[in-house]
């Protein structure tokens, strides 16, 4: 789960990390009221998860209640897109914060480093730029430190990172203290990433978090349930919500761009099925993993979820039964077809493993033949979608 800038800054401020004073608005009237209450040179920033909002016109300036109207009108409801996500995201909220006189921009983040199984701190004196670009062009400009979680944060770490990132000496102590607070946010919020880019040094030599990018671990929300309610439009998806309601996990349904609907049991098998469809020249419409041991009711709902995506032209069900029983899968599928939501002519099923005979018999009674292998099924499903 990713947080909007203002949500991230709220977490930062709670932990004592300096952030510019600001307020969130979702209407022009709210924006005017905010500027009336806090009349100061301010920045109006689109609250979206997508990158590149600056280039897209999602950041504007104002200095009083009158001249906030134009920027607020322009940004609220704006669709912001980038190369990776051409469909983009609508800005439903703006964050109005007081402008800061910036002398220099730094970069600072903490992320989960999978290989070392530790949090990794990254810092650079080259802030305000895309960090992956900096990492590629100036690898020496980025200091990295992997923290022993058993030790936790100790201030020598901040001083060491500051020195190795060639940050100005005058701010080392401030930096070490801020980094300690950021580590606190990282751990207590169960974050996969906390990033401040830019971390600004103001003209009077103070550090302040000019931006906030926070990605939380979905599984960690059981420890911070109040944060789960911060989920925003960009993070939700009606079909995914329906899958969750049906009892599936956060990652069991993923919407994709293609036209071949896919259902399978087990993440690895479903991924393999997607790949097989792609190799057969098709495009998967989704990823749907019914998990282990699914009953007929869940299978039925899975079929309904996938086929309610209007882009879906054919459906490929790929089951390798371990705990999952073939007869339950067959029952659920037959129920879904009976309710009229989908036609068996646009369906390919491969059913093997536990209770495969019982399942196939049920299917045969409904006039459905199961294919033998995943590759065969993929080819047929792709052909049906043409």
């Amino acid at each position, binding site marked *: 789960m990713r947080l909007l800038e203002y949500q991230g800054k709220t977490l930062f401020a709670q932990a004592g990390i300096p952030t510019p004073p600001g307020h969130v608005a979702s209407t022009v009237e709210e924006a005017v009221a905010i500027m009336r209450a806090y009349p100061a040179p301010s920045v109006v920033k689109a609250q979206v998860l997508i990158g590149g909002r600056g280039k897209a016109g999602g950041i504007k300036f104002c200095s009083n209640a009158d001249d906030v109207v134009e920027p607020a009108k322009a940004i609220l409801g704006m669709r912001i897109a980038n190369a*990776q996500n051409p469909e983009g995201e609508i800005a439903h909220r703006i964050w109005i914060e007081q402008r800061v006189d910036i002398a220099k921009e730094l970069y600072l983040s903490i992320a*989960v480093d*999978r*290989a070392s*199984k*530790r*949090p990794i701190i990254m810092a650079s004196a080259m802030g305000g730029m895309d960090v*992956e670009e900096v990492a590629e062009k100036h690898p020496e400009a980025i200091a990295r430190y992997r923290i*022993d*979680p*058993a030790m936790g944060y100790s201030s020598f770490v901040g001083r060491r990172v500051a020195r190795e990132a060639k940050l100005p000496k005058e701010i080392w102590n401030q930096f070490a203290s801020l980094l300690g607070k950021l580590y606190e946010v990282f*751990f207590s919020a*169960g974050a*996969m990433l906390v990033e401040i880019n830019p971390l600004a040094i103001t003209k009077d030599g103070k550090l302040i978090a000019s931006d906030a990018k926070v990605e939380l*671990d*979905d*599984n*960690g929300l*059981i*420890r911070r349930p109040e944060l789960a309610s911060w989920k925003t439009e960009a993070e939700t998806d009606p079909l995914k919500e329906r899958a969750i309601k049906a009892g599936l*996990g956060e*990652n*069991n349904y*993923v919407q*994709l*761009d293609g036209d071949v609907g896919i259902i*399978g*049991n*087990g*993440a*690895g*098998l*479903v*991924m*393999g099925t*997607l*790949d*097989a*469809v*792609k*190799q057969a020249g098709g495009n*998967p419409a989704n*990823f749907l*993993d019914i998990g*282990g041991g699914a009953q007929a009711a869940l299978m039925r709902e899975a079929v309904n979820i996938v086929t309610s995506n209007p882009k879906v032209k054919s459906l490929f069900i790929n089951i*390798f*039964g*371990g*705990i999952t029983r073939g007869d339950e899968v067959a029952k659920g599928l037959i129920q879904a077809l009976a309710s009229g939501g989908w036609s068996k002519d646009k369906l390919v099923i491969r059913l*093997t*493993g*536990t209770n495969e005979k019982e399942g196939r018999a049920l299917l045969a009674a409904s006039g459905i033949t199961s294919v033998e*292998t*995943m*590759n065969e099924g993929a080819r047929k499903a792709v052909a049906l979608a043409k």
Partner: protein
Amino acid sequence: MSIYLDKTSKVIVQGITGREGLYHANRMRAYGTDLVGGVTPGKGGQTVEGFAVFDGVAEARDKTGADVSVIFVPPPFAADAVLEAADAGIRLVICITEGIPVHDMIRALAVIGPKTRVIGPNCPGVITPGAALAGIMPGHVFKPGKVGLISRSGTATYEIVDHLTRNGIGQSTCVGIGGDPIIGTVFVDCLEAFEKDPGTDAVVIVGEIGGSDEEDAADLIERRGFTKPAVAFIGGRSAPKGKRMGHAGAIISGNSGTPESKLAAFARVKVPVADSPSDIPSLVQKALA
């Protein structure tokens, strides 16, 4: 021969009175595993379906000599269960639970010493075909033999093993290392164990997008830490960037975790990568020839 698990392993189930725990305890016992009991705090002294229940792992270990534990405990309590098993001196801790907070695992793994190997979480467990099953794998698919298998995924494993078995290729040990971003045992650990195992002639590596575990495995092969023939598969090659594919760990973020990087790494060390699970048996046969 095998790694991690064999006929002499004494296995307990943490969370044995839960629905999942009890179901799989029965399946493990039916497979022939020496399942010596289970743990559910507060229910010690009971017997469920023939399994002795203990209040804690230390007690279970003292009374049964257990050296392996399989954990079926709900996510909020699972890291505590892993720590309990390690604290009690359990040698091999297999955590099946899916949905454990990443930071819980980071903290637990940081303090567990070298005497305990943690496998998972969010994994299907370990099987040494014909000897013992410690996990949730469908035992009937497997067949004893000399090919080791390591996998980040459960069902992709069954699919691949099914092809191996149907083609007469048996397995020494199959380890499901789990689909989470932070896991106790990675490919490199298993390869080092298979390298030393005289019962393993070749290894199948079942990877997927996300992280750099496959690249690390290739590095190990490059520096001759693993010298037996290996064959690989990589799931999720068609997945778009930034989308999490079922497994919490299967995600391409920025330039990291891409299939291209993994394919390039395996190509560098001349490990053939199958396009489809059905291609694995012929690649294994070629590698062993």
